[in-house]
Every structure is written in structure tokens, then in C-alpha cells.
């Protein structure tokens, strides 16, 4: 039998018992529909996170903190040591833990580590307001790590870390209130930022808007380059050397030419000296891992639905083999080989699998796209740039192929039964 004839026969056989085929296809439909949707959620959220945090911050940057304190319950209090016990704990650690701060000594030590090009402490500044011209003043905050991340821009350019000019990336929610006609209009404008020093006196610092960013989940506030942060910090200190020599976090640039292995080695070096070094990618990885975990659980449910559907396929085909005993016997008597009979029934299983998965994926894409559009206008409008369901052609194709594979495997048992049938037994009259 030619392959073409086998496929055509399999397809026409599938439609011979319409109700039974329809019900089996429905079962597969549910699984394929769910799997397509969960995959799309995973892809959509991942893409959003990539754009948000990732937008791939500088790839040659470590975020460095002191390694988590060894103080654990039961060890008792640690003796004070003026050299090593840093004065403050920072707010950078996870809730419930304390992270020792970095001192200038630490910074020097980090800077001296082979492979580190430069190290800068992150200085947090608390501006009071932002104002454009003589308009209304709005409360305002600056994201301390903005100098090392890349903003999700709607207009303008990224911050220039080496520029001596004070630069600002404005969140797009500020554009209209500050009196700009559009995001593009805001780019290039000079705004003044108010800040109160430690003596209670208010100062104003001018900055140029170089870009407008979408509000981000993971980095709230405006972006400021090193020059602006320095200027604000100076204003904040009120010209007094406050001797603040401890920082929660430092940013270290390492040699761009380092390989991934060398970066890992460098991290290990820093770890032995008592520092935790993370690249932006590492931090991103943590978020991605959580999302992948959630999507994985959802996928598992979809796969369970598919396994249930697989039993449906087995049942359908076994009934079909039973019903068509005579036909199979006749075909074998007429010289059809067991292998061809096996192929025929496997193809029927695959056809059922393809029908269910193609319809399931198709409906999921249709419904999902509509739902995604509605959600991004309504419930999820607070998260601009989030496309909750992202249908990637490769993952849809993967779902269809996976279901066809499951269908093929389910068809194995019935197909084997059909292939092994003895033509004489099948053709008995009783």
C-alpha cells in the first residue's frame, strides 16, 4: 500500500464513526487548548519581564553586597569589632534578614580583586519633588540602581553614565502632569529637582530629561545618571562631610572581555572574600525561575488533561479494532502486511491527535488574542507593555507535535493488536 493511500485511508476511517471521533477529539482539544494558553502566558510574562528588568542592564556589572551574616539563631550575639562590624544594615536584603553594609575598606578590597575594573557604591538620594518651569511640584523618587540598568524607553535615549551633565529618565506617568504635550516633547527639557539637606534646608538641582520610560514593575522611580546622583547627594549632605562610609550595595564593573566561566570564577573569588556578587542576569534569572515554575505547574495540569485524553484515544481505537476485525482480517488475507496494518491504525491515532490539537491551538489563539486585548485595556492596563498571552509559532507547533506524539503512543497498543490479528480467526463466520 502506498503511503499516500495509507494516509487517505486513515483519514477516511477516522471519520467513519463520527460521534466517537468527535468525542475523542474534544478530549484532546481541552488538553491542547490549555497547553497552548499556559505556554502563551509563560511566553507573554517572560517577554514582559525581559523588557522590564532585563531590557538587559549592563552585562558587565556586578551588584555586590556583603555575604549574608553568619549570625544565626543559637550562636549568640557577635562581639563588636570596630574594623569589621559595619555600622548599619542596609535595606537591600530580603525581609527578615540583615545584610551588613559595605565600608570603604570593602570597596578598596573589591576594587583590588583581579578582573574588577571599577567599583562604585550605590548612594540613595531622597529628592522631595520635581518641577518643570514654574508648574506644579510633584513628589518624586529616584531609582538608585538606574545607572546600571537599561530603561524600557518610549522616547529619547538611555542615560549616559560618563556624561558630566546631569541626566534624567522620566517615568511616562509624569509627562502630562508636568505639562509636556508628549513624551517626545519632554526629551531635552530641563527640570528642577528639589531636595532637602540634613540641616533641613531645601536645594534645587537642575537636570536634563534624556528619555521617557515605561513604568517598570521592578525599578520604581526615575533614572538618574552618576553625575545627577552625585550632585543630589552633595546637595543632600548640605556640604558637610557626614562621614557616611557605609553602603548597602555597590556596583562593580568587570572586564567586558571576560568569558562566562571567568565571570563565575570572579564571583567565586569575591565570595571567598565575603561578598555576594550578582550580575543583572542572575537577578533576572531568579524572577524567570519563579515564572517558569508557575508556568511549569500550569503546563503539568494541561499534560494531565492530555494523558486523560490519551486513554480516550486508546479506548476509541480499541473499539475500532474490535469493530473492524473482519476488515483487518480481509486486508491481511489479501496480502496486507502486519506492518502496514500497524501503520494504518497509528496514522488514525495521529489524525485524531492532529485534529484535536490543531483545533485546540487554533481556538486558544483566537480566544486568547481577544482576551489579551481586552485585559490589556482593562484589568492589566496598569502594566503597560504587558501582553499577557504571547503565541509563539514555535511553541504552538511544539504543542501540536507533542499531542500528535502522545496520540501516536496511545495508538501503539490498539495498532499492535490489529497488526497481530490472525486473518483466519478474524474471518470466522460465527
Amino acid at each position, binding site marked *: 500500500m502506498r503511503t499516500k493511500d495509507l494516509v487517505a485511508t486513515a483519514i477516511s476511517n477516522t471519520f467513519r464513526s463520527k460521534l466517537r471521533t468527535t468525542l475523542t477529539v474534544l478530549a484532546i482539544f481541552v488538553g491542547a487548548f490549555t497547553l497552548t494558553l499556559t505556554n502563551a502566558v509563560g511566553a507573554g510574562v517572560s517577554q514582559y519581564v525581559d523588557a522590564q528588568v532585563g531590557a538587559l542592564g549592563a552585562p558587565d556589572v556586578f551588584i555586590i553586597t556583603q555575604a549574608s551574616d553568619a549570625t544565626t539563631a543559637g550562636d549568640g550575639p557577635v562581639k563588636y569589632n570596630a574594623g569589621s562590624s559595619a555600622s548599619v544594615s542596609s535595606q537591600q536584603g530580603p525581609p527578615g534578614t540583615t545584610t551588613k553594609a559595605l565600608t570603604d575598606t570593602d570597596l578598596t578590597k573589591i576594587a583590588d580583586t583581579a578582573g574588577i575594573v571599577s567599583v562604585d557604591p550605590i548612594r540613595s538620594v531622597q529628592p522631595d519633588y520635581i518641577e518643570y518651569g514654574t508648574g506644579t511640584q510633584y513628589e518624586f523618587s529616584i531609582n538608585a540602581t538606574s545607572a546600571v540598568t537599561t530603561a524600557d524607553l518610549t522616547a529619547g535615549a538611555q542615560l549616559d553614565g560618563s556624561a558630566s551633565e546631569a541626566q534624567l529618565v522620566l517615568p511616562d506617568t509624569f509627562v502630562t502632569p508636568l505639562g509636556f504635550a508628549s513624551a517626545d516633547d519632554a526629551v531635552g527639557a530641563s527640570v528642577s529637582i528639589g531636595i532637602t539637606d540634613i540641616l533641613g534646608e531645601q536645594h534645587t538641582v537642575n537636570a536634563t530629561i534624556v528619555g521617557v520610560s515605561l513604568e517598570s514593575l521592578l525599578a520604581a522611580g526615575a533614572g538618574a545618571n552618576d553625575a545627577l546622583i552625585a550632585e543630589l547627594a552633595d546637595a543632600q549632605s548640605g556640604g558637610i562631610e557626614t562621614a557616611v562610609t557605609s553602603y548597602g550595595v555597590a556596583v562593580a564593573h568587570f572586564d567586558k572581555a571576560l568569558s562566562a566561566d571567568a565571570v563565575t570564577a570572579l564571583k567565586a573569588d569575591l565570595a571567598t572574600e565575603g561578598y555576594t556578587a550578582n550580575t543583572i542576569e542572575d537577578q533576572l534569572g531568579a524572577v524567570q525561575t519563579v515564572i517558569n515554575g508557575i508556568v511549569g505547574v500550569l503546563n503539568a495540569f494541561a499534560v494531565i488533561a492530555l494523558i486523560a485524553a490519551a486513554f480516550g484515544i486508546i479506548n476509541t481505537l480499541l473499539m475500532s479494532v474490535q469493530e473492524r476485525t473482519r476488515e483487518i482480517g480481509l486486508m491481511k*488475507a*489479501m*496480502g496486507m*502486511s502486519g506492518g502496514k496494518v500497524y501503520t494504518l491504525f497509528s496514522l488514525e491515532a495521529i489524525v485524531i491527535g492532529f485534529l484535536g490539537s490543531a483545533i485546540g491551538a487554533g481556538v486558544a489563539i483566537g480566544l486568547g488574542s481577544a482576551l489579551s486585548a481586552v485585559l490589556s485595556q482593562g484589568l492589566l492596563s496598569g502594566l503597560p507593555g504587558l501582553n499577557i498571552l504571547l503565541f509563539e509559532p514555535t511553541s504552538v507547533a511544539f504543542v501540536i507535535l507533542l499531542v500528535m506524539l502522545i496520540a501516536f503512543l496511545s495508538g501503539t497498543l490498539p495498532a499492535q493488536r490489529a497488526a497481530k490479528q490472525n*486473518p483466519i480467526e478474524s474471518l470466522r463466520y460465527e
Partner: protein
Amino acid sequence: MDSQWVIDAQGLEKSYGSGASRFDALKGVSVQIAPGETLAIVGKSGSGKSTLMHLLALLDEPDEGTLQVAGRDAKSLSKCAVNGLRNKEFGFVFQQFFLTPNVSVLDNVILPLKIAGMGGKERRKRGMEVLEQLELADKAGNKATTLSGGQKQRVVIGRALVNAPRVIFADEPTGNLDTATGAVVEDILFELNRSQGITLVIVTHDEDLAARCDRQIYIRDGLVVSQTTSTHTGLTHTGAHALVTPEALSTAGGAE
């Protein structure tokens, strides 16, 4: 070559089951079938006549004994070769029709050609030829289930005939039909033997049908109890070869 196309069975034995439930269907049967002859295997139900036909048609393997087809030992043939043999050289007619319901008459008839891997156009052409020969051309597009019993059996004969076989094995071909329709079906089978030289092996318990064949083998309890040769055609079974004209042979040989 065609004159050598003999099915030669020696001492066939076949049993089913084991122990107390062991049933010896055949206890040593030898039979030779010459090209172009018509042979009736006659016996009551349970006599082993169907088992003998299954062995002769290579649908089953004997426990003991040898079977040679065209000079080759069936045991030495590969599975694939046996399938090919059944597909190209044999045609089957059963008491029950075994037509695929909800499939057209033409598609039922061309099933062996489809299994053989013949192209779509070619096999439809050949299928229509056979249906015309059996005066069923106008039913080609009908579903098999809509036909009468006699028409169905003619479709079955068409299916057995479509691959231009050398031998047609018929197991109770008229058992399911009324006398008049049965007679028509018999006429068609014997006409095929006469005009195309197709060897007929008919399993039956119907004495009248058996008498129309050149030769009869009577089977009881797994053994051949007697053999007779009809003289009504004025031919013995050895003389049957003479009936096969060279033209008829080339038609039959077209199955290659």
C-alpha cells in the same frame, strides 16, 4: 512456466489447542491442484475442509507436511513473499461478503490493488473493467450496504478477480444465497475458469456445486475419504490443462 504453477500439498497436518481440548483438524492430507482445473473440497462442517483451504491459500501454516507453490516450498518463502503471493496470485470469496460498509462498491472491489500499491487512476480503471464484466458498472458509486445479496456476492467476486489471480479460493460461495442467485454466482465462477483459465478451489457441502467441478475431494474427520473426477464435461482433471488456451494464460499471467 504456467503449467508448472501447481499447488502440491503432501501429508498436511494441523491441530488446534492442546491437552484435552486438542483438536486435530487435519491428519495428513495430500492434494495437488493443477493450473486451470476446478476442484471441490467437500465435507460436513468440522470435517477440516476450511482448514485445508486456509493451508492451501497460505493463510495458515501446517504443523506437519509440505506445501509447494509453483515448485517453491512455502516454508522457505518470506512473510513478504507470502503476502505478495496472496495479493497477486490468489483471489478470495467467502460465504459472508466482508464488504466494507459505507465505502463505495468500486472502492471495495479495488482494495487488493490498493494493498498492492497500484496508482489511483490505474486501479479505478481496472476496477471499472471488472465491474462491467460483472454487470455492476452502474452500481460503482453506490455504498456496498445498499446492494442485494446476489449483487454483494458479485462485488465479492469482482474483488477476488480484480488482481487477475491464477487461483480463486471460494469458501461456501453460495452458502448465503438463495438457489437462483447462487446459480448465477456459480455460473460466473465457472465462466471465469473457462474464459480466463483461473483455477477454482471451492469449499462446499453442496453436492450439486461440487458435481460441477472437474474433481472432488471428500474430507471427513481430517482425512481424505474419496476422490472423484467428473466426466460430465468429458474431461478428466488431467485434461483440464487442454482447456487453458494460450490467450487465457497470458491474461492470467498479467497479474505479475
